């Protein structure tokens, strides 16, 4: 709906309401405003999402149509609608980083990204690293180095390490610790995780 100040009207506010009240003068002025708005490529009001909306999210290479509200997080869509439960819901637990996913190749916390923000972007979750019988080297590295215990934080660590190696294929121990500082493992499997990262660094995975 066209709202706000008409630059030529001396500050009078024209709204749908006073348009509907409909004096001749108001109608003429509103028509002028509407015309101005129509010349703009996309009137702001048409892009405001205020309730449920169906959007397309590209997850692990496939498009999915999902209904979301503005407050729906990317994490909620992935877990509750697409059944991609690798990324973890951290509302009641403090395991920073267990909700890590890649959005346009960069690591982010899915729990603090709105689903609407992810529209049009390429989302990758840990499930994408399964491969076709050929898991991602980060996954096989975690297995080899026994870099997990309870496993809750593991998918997030795997995704953060994937992002780190994509950015810097040959990180030093310090760079590994810096890059993975946003993930916590309450079981304390850091030794296996850093060994895994160091081996992948040497192997250039």
């Amino acid at each position, binding site marked *: 709906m066209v709202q706000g100040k008409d630059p030529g009207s001396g500050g009078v506010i024209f709204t749908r309401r006073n348009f509907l009240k409909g004096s001749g003068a108001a109608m003429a002025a509103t028509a002028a405003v509407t015309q101005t708005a129509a010349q703009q490529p996309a009137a702001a009001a048409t892009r405001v*999402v205020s309730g449920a909306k169906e959007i397309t999210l590209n997850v692990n290479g496939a498009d999915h149509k999902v209904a979301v509200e503005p407050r729906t997080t990317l994490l909620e869509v992935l877990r509750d609608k697409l059944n991609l439960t690798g990324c973890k819901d951290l509302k009641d637990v403090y395991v920073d980083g267990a909700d*890590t996913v890649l959005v346009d190749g*960069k690591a982010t916390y899915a729990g603090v990204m709105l689903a*609407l923000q992810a529209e049009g972007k390429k989302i990758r979750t840990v499930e994408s690293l399964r491969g076709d019988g050929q898991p991602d080297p980060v996954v096989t590295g975690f297995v080899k180095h026994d870099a997990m215990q309870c496993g809750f934080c593991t998918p997030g660590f795997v995704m953060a390490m994937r992002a780190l190696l994509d950015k810097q294929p040959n990180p030093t121990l310090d760079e590994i610790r810096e*890059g993975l500082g946003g993930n916590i493992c309450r079981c304390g499997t850091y030794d296996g995780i850093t060994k895994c990262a160091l081996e992948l660094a040497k192997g250039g995975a």
Partner: protein
Amino acid sequence: MRNFEYAAADSEADALSLLADHPGETAILAGGTDLVSLLQKELVNPRRVVDISRVSELKAIEPTDDGGVRIGALATLEELLASPLAAEYPSLRDVASAIRAIQIQQYGTIGGDLCHLPNCWYFRKGYGLLGDSNGRALSEEGDNRYHAIFGNRGRAKFVSASRFAPSLIAWDASVRIAGPAAGEEAWLPLEQFFVTPKGDQQGVTRLAPGQLITHLELTPAAGRLSGAYEVLEMSGLDWPLAAAASTLEMEGGVVSRAKIVLGHVAPTPWVSHPAADVLRGQPITEATAELAGEAAVSEASPLKDNEYKVRLAKTAVKRSLLRAAGANV
């Protein structure tokens, strides 16, 4: 989380018009690291969230005509670290590299850092910035180990959360504020951007409803020295207990002008004039850096649980100076 309207802006003008529809009832979303958790805890309850993360004109880090640098508010920490222009300002890199999480590095923005609301646990649990519960000042009577040691004689006891503000202020950065009207803009020294709220309804910055910060500008580094040091309790994702940033102009091996700014010790970034005064005419040595640290904390007024922060603040000042002088501390 309560529901709200969402609108993605595609330009600065578009963002201002989306903000103008509901003055004072909007929130600005960029990387989301702070805002979405505030929304989840219902600590902010906007009618509309304006997503500026796709506004490409606010992302660039570019040179200014006079040889300085202009940083878009949406520049990520990773982009800041990778930028050869920002490399002229080593204290910024000291801070960016201390934020040890690839998720924050890749999605956190410099503008979001400056607007980050305090991490005071009373605020984050819903007792407001002033930490009041039925007329009792929780941040004064309760556990205040992480609270302010400077500027804390009023009702506000929390500490400013921005990691980058001390370094940017030490570099005399200015911030561009756009809005609320289309085409309206103001450049403000960043030092004046932060305010200490006196009442419940006041915020922590001078941003008025409908405004947003769009750019930061730094004058040419021109041989000035700089360093920043954050005292962190944990080596992973953590907030500093105290921090300091120093920028120094040198002449013939001695300091001709110093700007020393402390972080996480007051409700705003804290510019220390006593520390700067002590250094004028002095070389930077272990001994003069120590004296500057002592001068900086001479005006501290710790609360019941945070006397320890005085020593940390002193050490942060000292180490920021030694870093500026090239020491690996």
